[in-house]
């Protein structure tokens, strides 16, 4: 698989090298192009300084910090239950998933375990936020390549998922619903049937995207063989999630990590793609939405009855110690390293966010590509600026 990817990349580089020779003969003058901070391809305010030689990128240097909010410092002056309000806003398209690893890390330090019903509902909401997050990507990637229709379908169908999240948690984007030892509230009446209808909609949305986008010839020519990331390079940069699975690495923490959530009791599949190009990243995410729908469907049929909160003290003091918990979030691996000194507030919280590592590969992957491909590569890496700047 690796071999195939590298041959593709070599042929791509060879093509570009022949173009570069033409450029040298013509002696084009270098040019600096400023991409951003406001650009639809960046999901926030990321600025990329691209040095060009003709149509070709010589070097790309991302400039960040326009949205840095200092959550690691702020976490040090908030009590543990208050931190979830902050971390909601890291990856704002899949907010509930941000709370889960933090709560799990605190639970590990307190040696508390959520009751089964809470774990099942947690997993359902975790996967629903993945669907809400990635469905938007499936439309958004197309709009960045010039196809306007899919993004309207995406916004339309994501809204149904957000409605379901809202009817449980009370918040469309920032649920703040996960608690140490369980969840805040039980499911509302009639939610299970409504969610099943929504899942059917998402399934048909995926089929639409399969026809409209994946089957589209223009989309294929603009993404196939573009922005190839070999598996070993991706791993050494810390790429995770669908980005590394589309380079042929069969590694998913939902299957392999297995803390606190109940993915191991469900029947589903980890999708990989051998190519490692922009197309593979789109394709893997499309399959993952389908798998998430399958998972939520099974969860809805199997939620056990029982309490939703374990017994925890009202004023939460976390015993001294250190714990690191990571989960497979919509954008990739997200983890929290918590250092506790037995106080009401964490002593230090290190937030390992997925997009930060995913974007750190851009200087490597953008080197040598053409200007239009910059957009398709950035779109296919799929980052959210809140997840980079924290």
């Amino acid at each position, binding site marked *: 698989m690796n071999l195939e990817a590298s041959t593709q990349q070599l042929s791509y580089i060879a093509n570009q090298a022949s173009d570069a020779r033409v450029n040298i003969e013509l002696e084009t003058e270098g040019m600096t192009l400023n991409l951003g901070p406001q650009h639809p391809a960046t999901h926030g305010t990321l600025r990329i300084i691209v040095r060009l030689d003709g149509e070709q990128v010589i070097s790309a240097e991302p400039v960040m910090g326009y949205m840095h909010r200092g959550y690691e410092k702020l976490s040090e002056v908030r009590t543990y239950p208050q931190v979830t309000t902050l971390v909601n806003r890291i990856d704002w398209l899949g907010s509930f998933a941000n709370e889960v690893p933090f709560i799990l890390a605190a*639970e590990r330090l307190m040696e508390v375990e959520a009751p089964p019903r809470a774990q099942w509902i947690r997993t359902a909401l975790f996967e629903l936020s993945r669907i809400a997050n990635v469905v938007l990507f499936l439309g958004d990637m197309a709009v960045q390549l010039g196809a306007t229709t899919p993004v309207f379908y995406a916004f339309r169908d994501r809204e149904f998922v957000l409605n379901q999240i809202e009817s449980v948690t009370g918040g469309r984007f920032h649920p703040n619903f996960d608690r140490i030892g369980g969840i*805040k509230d039980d499911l509302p009446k009639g939610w299970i049937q409504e969610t099943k209808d929504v899942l059917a909609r998402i399934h048909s949305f995926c089929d639409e995207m399969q026809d409209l986008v994946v089957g589209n010839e223009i989309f294929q020519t603009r993404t196939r063989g573009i922005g190839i990331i070999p598996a070993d390079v991706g791993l050494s940069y810390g790429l995770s999630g669908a980005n590394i699975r589309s380079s042929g690495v069969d590694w998913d923490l939902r299957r392999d990590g297995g803390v606190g959530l109940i993915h191991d009791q469900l029947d589903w599949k980890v999708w990989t793609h051998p190519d490692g190009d922009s197309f593979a990243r789109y394709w893997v995410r499309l399959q993952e939405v389908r798998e998430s729908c399958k998972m939520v469907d099974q969860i809805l049929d199997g939620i056990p009855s029982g309490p939703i909160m374990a017994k925890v003290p009202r*004023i939460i003091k976390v015993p001294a110690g250190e714990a690191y918990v990571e989960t497979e979030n919509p954008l990739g691996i997200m983890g929290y390293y918590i250092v506790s000194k037995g106080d009401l507030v964490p002593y230090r919280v290190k937030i390992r966010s997925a997009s930060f590592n995913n974007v750190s590969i851009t200087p490597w992957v953008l080197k040598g590509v053409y200007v239009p491909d910059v957009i398709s590569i950035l779109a296919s890496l799929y980052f959210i600026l809140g997840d980079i700047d924290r």
Partner: protein
Amino acid sequence: MSSPDTTEEELVDESIEPQEELVIDEERNVLISSLEKDLGDDLVDSHVVPGVDAWIRVTQESWLETAKVLFEKNEMIFFNFLSAIDWKPSPFGREMDAAIDADSSDEVVDESEMEWGVTGGQNRFQLLARVHNPSTNIGIHLKTDLEGEYPEVETWIPVYPGANWHEREVMEMFGISFTNHPNLVNLYLPSEFEGHPLRKDFPLLSRRAKPWPGIVDVELMPGEDDDESEDTGEET
């Protein structure tokens, strides 16, 4: 050097699944003992929570060497993160109660009060990193003690190129510099920014200007009544 299974008293086995006493983690113990062989005296301390996680602490000089050993001999090819911890407690006391202790400058915290976490420590700053082996799905945390107020340590970029941005972040947030780093400039902060925000002695000015309600507004957990508060010993 303590053996991997001995724990200090606050480092009790924190595995969350209910399981029998004395869980032995073969894979992680093998990993630690092979590291002991490769690193020798540079491995200062190690700690294993069976079935959950592993930590090692190495000397500052062997920081890059450790990365090489982990990458080449133990197939830890996934770079997870790199950060630092400032173990010297804040001289401003607990910021949560800023309204109360903002005036009392008598709370002077001296260095002897430093307490370290897992695998111990000896200096104010500790680097913290994590690498992972995706095929066996075992990760390990690395720590190293850094000398001085503005320490210097070798960069990890030759082994893990992904460390580039993490090291820039550590540089601006903690004032720790990395030798041989190709582009050690601020990542998030403006270039003229003064101070290192994640150091504990960097005050959070917004909290000083506007006190935080803090622990007063703890909301009731679901299914919890006021009369339950007596078993926590807290007044409602």
